[in-house]
């Protein structure tokens, strides 16, 4: 019950802050339409003959870039929450409240994650409805399970990024590098099979590669969970293991920062 009240308090805080910044959210929404439009014309320029992994190119890109954007924004939201608390000086005040640090950090990013989720849905709707990507053939159960797994992985990587921010105050740079690597290797814009063989091995180590393959199949071909095979066998245990590991690592770095006296450094 306390957790829910805190969640609502964070949403209220961020809603009030956002509403007092004027039309920033509306500008983000308009930006989504332009982004989808750009990929639509890229796909038109490439032509209908190109069908990566058997999907039409525009659908391939919309799902790839949408999920990549959501994943990275979620990871980044933790660093932003910590950094803003460090810059505003509220981190020490928050860390002396009755709330434990791990839920505190997770909750701090909650409204950003909700906003990212809404943006992802809006982006996919714009792509599939406004610009007429391929007809959807969705397996709802697979889509829900994959969404939960992707969210769990994003939370885990986000908490790890928050740990980097607390530890060496370079969380933003690490997230930028992380985002660039998964952009290139996870099959966001082009199929992984296009990469040279040694780099394909690296691509197969990135969870988002499996998530994108599975999600495209679940959304465009109606593929069920049981048909997804190795991808699910990799994603599900990874999500289950990585989340508590990330919370543990964050707790250790927080303790280290309290020992070094660097909690409010930025």
């Amino acid at each position, binding site marked *: 019950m306390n957790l829910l009240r805190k969640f609502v308090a964070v949403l209220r805080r961020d809603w009030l802050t956002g509403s007092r910044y004027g039309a920033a959210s509306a500008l983000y929404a308009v930006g989504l339409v332009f982004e989808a439009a750009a990929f639509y014309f890229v796909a038109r320029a490439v032509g209908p003959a190109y069908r990566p992994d058997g999907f039409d190119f525009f659908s391939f890109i919309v799902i790839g870039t949408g999920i990549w954007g959501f994943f990275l924004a979620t990871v980044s939201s933790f660093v932003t929450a910590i950094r803003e608390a460090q810059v505003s000086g509220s981190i020490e*005040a928050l860390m002396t409240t009755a709330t434990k640090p791990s839920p505190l950090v997770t909750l701090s990013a909650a409204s950003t994650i909700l906003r990212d989720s809404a943006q992802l849905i809006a982006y996919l709707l714009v792509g599939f409805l406004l610009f007429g990507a391929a007809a959807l053939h969705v397996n709802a159960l697979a889509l829900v399970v994959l969404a939960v797994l992707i969210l769990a992985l994003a939370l885990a990587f986000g908490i790890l990024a928050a740990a980097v921010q607390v530890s060496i105050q370079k969380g933003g740079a690490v997230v930028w590098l992380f985002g660039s690597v998964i952009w290139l290797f996870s099959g966001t814009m082009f199929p992984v099979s296009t990469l040279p063989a040694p780099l394909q091995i690296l691509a197969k180590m990135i969870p988002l590669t499996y998530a994108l393959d599975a999600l495209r199949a679940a959304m465009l071909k109606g593929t069920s969970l049981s048909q997804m095979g190795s991808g699910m066998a990799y994603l599900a245990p990874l999500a289950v293991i990585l989340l508590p590991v990330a919370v543990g690592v964050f707790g250790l770095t927080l303790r280290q920062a*309290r020992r070094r*006296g660097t909690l409010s450094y930025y």
Partner: protein
Amino acid sequence: MAMIEIQSVTKIFGRREWARPWRCPSETRALDGVSLKFETGRIGVLLGPNGSGKTTLLKLLSTILLPDSGLVRVGGHDTAKNEDAVRRVVGFAVGAERSFFPRLTARENLRFFAVFEELPPATIPRRIEEVLAAVNLTSDADKQAMKFSSGMLHRLGIARAILKSPAVLLLDEPSRSLDPAASEELWKMLLSMKETGTTVLVASHNFEETASIADAIAVLDHGRLAGCKNFSPRGDATAVREFYFSVSQARSEAKRLAEAPA
């Protein structure tokens, strides 16, 4: 019973770390073997020059920092082993003025922190009005924090610290940005909190403030405890001043002799 107990505490900043051995930071011994006790329901004042370790001591008590050696106990709880229990009993008015969400009003900021302090929901609106009144901010409660003056932010920080009616209240130079009338109001509030059993520890540079509120004084000098004593009668700033300079000078003289060639 000792509500605050500090035993042989040492805190060093800038230590070389195993994770970054190439860095050679210069060490600062912020606290060096400090031992202190403050009884329940008393007001203790930490005096000392800038950099003497007063804020470090308050941060150790509030769990923001961990000691390198020694033991810090608040309400019988070890701050290194049972930090959750410590945070439930400690209210800390951090010295930094920038510790609020600038676009939220004072009332909205307090509401946010009240939820994170896990106050019962039904009591929150009444408690917020009480603490706003206690620091004389009721008429400014709907102003955004970014529009507050330094003194108002300081008072809002104190309001936040007393939200949960803490058993131990830690204040870092509470009257620094306050006008004389506001300072006197604050001292009255601290004395009334003491009457209800709250233990208060204040870091200060102000002899008048110390004389007005202190039951006990501890003087820190270069991270070491230079002296401490129970203080009475209340109101004698000259006595505080004399004690402060007697122990500070004694420490300086002892240090000078220790460092002098044989």
